[in-house]
């Protein structure tokens, strides 16, 4: 069953060859030799960058590389002599190696960029060889390519840009302008609240803009009407624009109304304006804040849920602190933006638009002049905006650095103290903190030049009004009231423009956070459930590995072609040197990662065909350093089975030899274990984690060095508990102390990712291989210790 995403049976690579190379080849090839495979590489034989080629015909493999003299260096190997083809990932490049019976040759060199392109090449060549000479299936031709590595994308599929390792999504293909719209998508469920507050906002803004108009009426019609009567007030300007806005707010004084009455009406109107404006804005501030909180609540929930759906490899590539900052800081910054920033932006834009309309209806010519500095303002804002965006990006990274350092060092404080490295840790922190400081100072510098420039630009508008408007009033084309109204609006106009500019950095900050959050949300889990994967029924517990090959990174297989079968109820001891792949094997049974080649069958079903939840529900894990959550003892035991009865909890604790020490705590099963279970001792923690596994009643049990970190007496108790636990279950136990594995039915010895030995203790001792050697060494050691 070929399940790798790039099946080995894919089409042969056929890159275009340049004319010169083709003609060079024509001289080499026989009359009936046909080119079947051609691949362009990016490193020459001499190690310089530049195209070189690998071609294959039905008869031979040829490597071609331009040499310095302008000619072609050629290396050819007849297919018939090839015994092994492999792509090897070297320290800084890759190479295609060919082995013949007599010697080996490197036919193509390439940079790591082309590693994924060349990884399927060995199996393609192998196919050519099989076609050339039908060989029996067990021939010695073997390819060890690491194809089908889909786990981690290093480059964007669309634009070929390198993807930052902590992102998982191409930043180039992420449209920043769409971020805001996407964010607004989260407001959809609350659209009534959103529309309501928006209407309130607009109404309040509109009402807030009427006072200068009242002021104009006050001056023109009440205060200076007598003297101004001689002035041809507004006579040149058609009455129409004047009446359009102001009259609706302040009804034209009936000629019969005397001035004190008008004054009183105006004052009352102003009072009304202020009361209603502030009342409305109180309501809308509340509504918008509520909206913002709801949206961020949803977002925070979604981010956290998504984090739990991602596979372990996501966590391997990122530091804990960084992920935590995603959930807390980034989301709270968005909240700040949505509940404060966004409404300020909308209000400011509405203000600007309304003022523009009023100004232009008052006096279009003057309005045009007054608005002249605005384009300049916008230009500057955009320039500074970009600068600030970059700076804030840097700042965010430095914050994340500090978080990562804290999350790393504080839990490891015992190690720090034990090695007396406080000074170094402090200076490490100081360094990063200093980096943050210098970043903040750079931001402060940019902002401190930004604000004065902006203020100066806005003051230009006032200058213009004084000069132009003043002249017009003198010339009688503008009434005094209109001049005053203009000045008033001027101040109200540049206020929002300026604050929009100041808001810019807040917006940038929020956009950066939004980007990062959506990046997490867009990252797909690479251990995805197949559509239509159904639940695994209760299993009997057989486990089979069929040709399993796995690597965390391409070119470095951790497990190679593993084949074995474990019967239900068997206990398998896993042994081997450190780094032999024991823990990896266990990770694969739990399907924390997906394998690249072969199949893992549980009860003869491919584990990729069943839902993750139903698979893991039948697996119990006891780790070397068990992780307990902050909660009571009882809660931790019942972690894998919420709603377990008290009977079950106590029984599980008894089975794990934990009951007695639990009762010795004054609060018994209700004792809090503290964060990470640090308030109980290591051996106690271990037994609690065994109880946790027992309560789940799993069919497959995994013990990863379960007794490595406890003293001998505790180990005996734990061993006792384990012996009860493994009864009737398929068990995989990893142990360095081989004596721990004495109960195992069979032992599985891994060596450099390969299955070296499998069999019972006696069989393996007789075989006198790795296991026998390990055993001898440990007896030797214990004799030394005893002596």
């Amino acid at each position: 069953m070929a399940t790798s995403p790039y099946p080995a049976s894919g089409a042969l690579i056929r890159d275009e060859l340049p004319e010169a190379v083709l003609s060079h080849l024509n001289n080499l090839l026989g009359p009936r030799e046909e080119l079947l495979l051609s691949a362009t590489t990016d490193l020459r034989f001499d190690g310089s960058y530049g195209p070189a080629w690998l071609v294959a015909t039905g008869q031979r493999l040829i490597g071609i590389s331009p040499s310095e003299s302008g000619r072609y260096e050629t290396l050819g190997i007849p297919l018939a002599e090839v015994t092994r083809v492999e792509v090897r990932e070297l320290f800084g490049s890759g190479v295609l190696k060919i082995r013949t019976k007599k010697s080996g040759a490197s036919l193509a060199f390439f940079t790591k960029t082309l590693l994924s392109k060349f990884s399927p090449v060995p199996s393609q060549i192998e196919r050519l060889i099989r076609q050339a000479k039908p060989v029996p299936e067990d021939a010695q031709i073997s390819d060890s390519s690491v194809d089908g590595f889909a786990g981690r994308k290093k480059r964007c599929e669309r634009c070929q840009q390198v993807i930052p390792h902590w992102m998982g999504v191409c930043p180039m293909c992420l449209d920043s302008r769409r971020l805001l719209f996407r964010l607004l998508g989260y407001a959809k469920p609350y659209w009534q609240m959103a529309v309501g507050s928006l209407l309130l906002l607009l109404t309040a803004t509109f009402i807030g803009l009427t006072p200068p108009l009242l002021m104009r009426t006050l001056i023109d019609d009440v205060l200076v009407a007598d003297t101004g009567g001689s002035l041809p007030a507004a006579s040149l300007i058609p009455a129409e624009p004047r009446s359009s806005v102001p009259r609706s707010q302040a009804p034209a004084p009936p000629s019969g109304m005397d001035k004190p009455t008008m004054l009183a009406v105006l004052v009352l109107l102003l009072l009304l304006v202020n009361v209603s404006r502030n009342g409305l804005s109180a309501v809308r501030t509340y509504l918008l804040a509520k909206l913002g909180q709801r949206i961020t609540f949803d977002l925070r929930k979604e981010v956290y849920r998504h984090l739990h759906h991602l596979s372990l490899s996501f966590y391997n590539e990122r530091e804990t602190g960084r992920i935590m900052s995603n959930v807390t800081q980034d989301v709270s910054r968005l909240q700040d933006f949505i509940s404060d920033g966004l409404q300020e932006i909308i209000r400011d834009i509405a203000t600007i638009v309304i003022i523009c309309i009023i100004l232009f209806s008052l006096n279009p010519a003057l309005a045009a002049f007054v608005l002249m500095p605005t384009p300049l303002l916008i230009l500057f804002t955009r320039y500074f905006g970009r600068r600030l965006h970059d700076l804030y990006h840097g700042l965010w990274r430095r914050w994340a650095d500090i978080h990562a350092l804290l999350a790393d060092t504080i839990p490891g404080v015992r190690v720090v103290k034990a090695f007396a490295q406080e000074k170094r840790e402090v200076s490490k922190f100081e360094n990063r903190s200093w980096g943050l400081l210098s970043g903040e100072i750079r931001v402060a510098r940019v902002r401190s030049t930004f604000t004065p420039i902006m203020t100066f630009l806005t003051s230009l508008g006032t200058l213009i009004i004084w000069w132009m408007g003043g002249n017009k009033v003198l010339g009688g084309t503008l009434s005094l009231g209109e001049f005053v109204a203009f000045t008033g609006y001027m101040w109200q106009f540049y206020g929002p423009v300026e604050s929009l500019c100041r808001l810019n950095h807040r917006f940038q900050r929020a956009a950066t956070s939004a980007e990062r959050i959506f990046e997490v949300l867009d990252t797909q889990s690479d251990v995805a459930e197949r559509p239509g994967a159904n639940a695994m029924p209760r299993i009997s517990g057989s486990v089979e590995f069929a040709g399993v090959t796995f690597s965390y990174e391409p070119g470095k297989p951790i497990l190679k072609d593993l084949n074995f079968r474990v019967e239900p109820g068997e206990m398998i001891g896993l042994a081997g040197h450190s780094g032999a792949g024991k823990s990896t094997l266990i990770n694969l049974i739990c399907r924390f990662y997906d394998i690249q080649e072969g199949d893992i069958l549980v009860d003869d079903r491919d584990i990729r065909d069943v839902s993750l939840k139903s698979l893991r529900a039948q697996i119990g894990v006891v780790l070397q350093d068990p992780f307990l959550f902050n909660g009571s003892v009882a809660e931790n035991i019942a972690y894998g089975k919420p709603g377990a009865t008290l009977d079950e909890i106590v029984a599980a604790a008894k089975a794990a030899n934990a009951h007695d020490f639990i009762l010795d705590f004054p609060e018994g099963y209700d004792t809090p274990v503290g964060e990470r279970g640090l308030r109980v001792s290591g051996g106690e923690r271990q037994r609690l984690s065994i109880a946790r596994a027992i309560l789940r009643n799993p069919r497959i049990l995994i013990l990863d060095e379960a007794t490595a970190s406890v003293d001998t007496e505790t180990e005996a108790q734990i061993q006792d508990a384990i012996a009860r636990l493994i009864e009737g279950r398929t068990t995989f136990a990893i142990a360095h102390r081989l004596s721990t594995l004495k109960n195992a039915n069979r032992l599985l010895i891994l060596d450099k990712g390969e299955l070296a030995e499998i069999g019972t203790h006696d069989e393996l001792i007789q075989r006198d291989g790795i296991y026998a050697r390990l055993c001898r060494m440990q007896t030797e050691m214990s004799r030394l210790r005893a002596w």
Partner: protein
Amino acid sequence: MQQAYHLEQELTLLDPGRIRLIRDELTDLILEYRGERQTVTAHRAFPLTATGQFIVLKNVDGVEIGAIRDIATLDEESRDVLETDLERTYFAPVILQVNRLEENFHVPKWDVETDRGHRVFEVRSRRRDIRVMSEGRILLRDADGNRYEIPDYRKLDPVSRAFVETLI
């Protein structure tokens, strides 16, 4: 569904019908069970979350004799004896009203009325000594290790409630 063994077989439950608990002159707890008579100590396995269940009886050497799954299944006399004993062991007055709550150097000083009378105590650590359980239940431990309980702070009078809410 085959199972290796039933977890429940691990439990050593006592048959409530055969238990008789008496208190002797020295107010020791005496267990009469299946014709045997011995001095025991009673322990709650879940002193906070299930006070009436899983009462573990140990002999004078601290070795577990067995557990009473539910105190309600005992005969009335034994239940009274056991409950009185447990209440003394797990002494935790119920706070009925909070008169004052003062904070000095982040050490809150509680002035309360409990079901056992008036009491003033101080709590050292908010995180360790104040446990908020579900349903508004709050467990307190004062600086000397004494315990207090508020069954549901939401049902306290408004003044007491406001005091409590500043600390949780």
